């Protein structure tokens, strides 16, 4: 902790102390109130400040308000803390931190672009795989599955979400990577020999592996939320559609259209999870900050770079660059969430 910070904190404590002294000293009314044991006076006083409200209600209201504000303050505090700790790097690199492509800890030349690229592309890859799968699972579970199959199947998909990410990583190293290397990647290269997306020797530790691992991890989020949303569509709608002579496919389509804003929310939540996921990705993505079109080449993500490099980063500039990376991840997540909100609102309004 720097001296400046110690000073700030001590100043903060000082203001609290002053406040306390003020409370203790100023309103004579309150002091008298506690000194005198006059029952009538006390109740009159309480009435004066409480009005018709119940004391318990007021305490409850204020307490919940306090915690709500605290959460908000915590987020602000985190953002401010990250900003102030990355000032060194922000001042040194400025906007160049977001547009150049070198991450060189030895030369102390840092840029976040390769990691931003890796984060976004691996998460999008994950969505490309997980959205069709997850939605199929959700539709099957909500609309088509017989009751005896629905319960155990939903339980199993939700179980996927409970597996720790490092276990996914290990599974990735021992099962996924060899399979991608020996089967999937040679197949892709044979099918699309000239595609820029499948260039380079396939080693299995690459953007594709990161995307596939992420897709498995976000699958339960997308499928279980979508299933809940589909189930919450009122039954009369289905009954009406059947009554008009619609087929199962047409009924499902109607229900789906009704639920689309919620499903969109599920997808964005999945995207948010993918963006912040760390351990499993680090273990299979090859950790190489570079920007290439090929998904068969190693890449690196923001969360991965933080997990990799934070503990051994010794110089101040290196540390501050890493914290700026964290700040960027923070901002990206906020943007995604705002975007998701807007989308959901937009579709809701159009539907109404």
């Amino acid at each position: 902790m720097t001296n400046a910070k110690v000073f700030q904190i001590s100043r903060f404590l000082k203001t609290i102390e002053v406040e306390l002294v003020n409370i203790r000293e100023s309103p004579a009314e309150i002091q008298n109130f506690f000194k005198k044991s006059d029952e009538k006076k006390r109740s009159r006083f309480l009435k004066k400040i409480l009005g018709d409200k119940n004391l318990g209600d007021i305490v409850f209201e204020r307490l919940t308000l306090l915690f709500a504000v605290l959460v908000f303050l915590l987020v602000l505090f985190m953002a401010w803390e990250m900003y102030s700790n990355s000032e060194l790097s922000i001042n040194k690199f400025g906007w160049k931190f977001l547009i150049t492509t070198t991450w060189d800890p030895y030369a102390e030349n840092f840029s976040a672009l390769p990691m931003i690229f890796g984060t976004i592309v691996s998460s999008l890859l994950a969505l490309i795989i997980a959205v069709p799968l997850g939605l199929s699972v959700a539709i099957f579970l909500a609309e088509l599955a017989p009751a005896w199959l629905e319960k155990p199947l939903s339980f199993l998909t939700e179980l996927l979400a409970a597996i720790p990410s490092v276990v996914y990583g290990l599974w990735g190293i021992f099962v996924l990577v060899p399979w991608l290397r020996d089967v999937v990647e040679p197949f892709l290269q044979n099918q699309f020999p000239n595609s820029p997306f499948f260039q380079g020797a396939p080693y299995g530790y690459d953007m594709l592996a990161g995307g596939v691992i992420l897709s498995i991890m976000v699958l339960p989020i997308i499928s279980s939320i979508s299933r809940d949303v589909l189930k919450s569509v009122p039954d009369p709608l289905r009954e009406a559609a059947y009554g008009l002579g619609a087929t199962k496919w047409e009924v499902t389509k109607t229900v789906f259209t009704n639920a689309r804003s919620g499903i969109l929310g599920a997808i964005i939540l999945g995207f948010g999870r993918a963006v912040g996921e760390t351990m499993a990705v680090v273990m299979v993505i090859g950790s190489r900050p570079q920007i290439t079109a090929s998904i068969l080449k190693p890449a690196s993500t923001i969360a991965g770079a933080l997990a990799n490099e934070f503990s051994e980063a010794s110089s101040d500039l290196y540390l501050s660059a890493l914290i700026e990376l964290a700040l960027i991840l923070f901002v990206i997540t906020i943007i995604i969430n705002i975007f998701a909100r807007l989308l959901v609102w937009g579709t809701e309004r159009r539907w109404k």
Partner: protein
Amino acid sequence: MKKVLLLLALFGVVSMSSAQLQLNGAGSTFDYPIFSKWFDTYHKMTGTEINYASIGSGGGIHQVTEGTVDFGASDAPLTPEQMSDFTKAQGTDIVHIPIIMGGVAITYNLPSVGQGIKLDGTTLADIYLGKVTKWNDPRIVKMNPDKNLPDKAILVAHRSEGSGTTFIFTSYLSKVSPDWAKQCGTSIAINWPVGIGAKGTEGVAGVIAQTEGAIGYIELAYAKQNNLPYCLMKNQAGKFVEVNFNTVSAAAAGAAAHMPKDLRAVITNSPGKNSYPICGFSWVVIPKDIKNREHAQALVKFLKWGVTKGQENATSLYYAPLPKSVQKLDLEKLNAITSNGKKL
């Protein structure tokens, strides 16, 4: 109520036992296995309790600079900038004590070839620079006339996180290859020209185990425990040497003669016929003048024990012990530690 009393009583016992002398350290994960063995033995012997947080060398350096721990442990020596930061913060200089040694094995996966491919430093550097890309490159074939090297692409594996092992490895490549020194340099983490980054020693070993044609650098201990094949490296004297405890200690002995005064010696590519070229010290870093006299005495006593008696434990945990000549230099440094300007 009873429970509360019980808790209070327990708390009392805990706080009473913590009245005993306690030293705190933080840093290198590489040192952690031998440290925990030492702390345990030493606690039983003397009653001095030592806590160690293996949070990484960088973190150890930060904590000792801020004065929150009694000692830090680092796999790389402090940079001049870090040393002046320390002096500014603590008002005294920092002292480097080489505490244990580690070797770095160059391991590979070529089932058809088996143990003991011979390599020299410049070729290794060119492999990591992406200039030598096949196992049957004429330069490798020339060094291994007795081996039938396949026409297989070399996959370079390296650590993805900052690591003392990477520091030792890159310092070696920088010493033997001017191209490497210019393009990549020596650091705990660098901008790798080619290859795949894997997390931790196990990660690198995993990539190598799974991929035919892969090459990577890992700690000696890990290579030995898992019986991985490793390269014989050409040393400064021109001999190809195997990596083991003797050749690593020989490298330190070779370097001891030209040891800098502050003991911040990077001993890669060190002279001597039996010296293995890719190895290094791990350091404990402590203030030269320690304010708390009691702590100072206990810490110095422990470190003296560690660099002498403690070295006997080293090989059983796959570390290389410090040679006698370096132990002597350590003891001289430790004898010069003061508390508030007075000798201990």
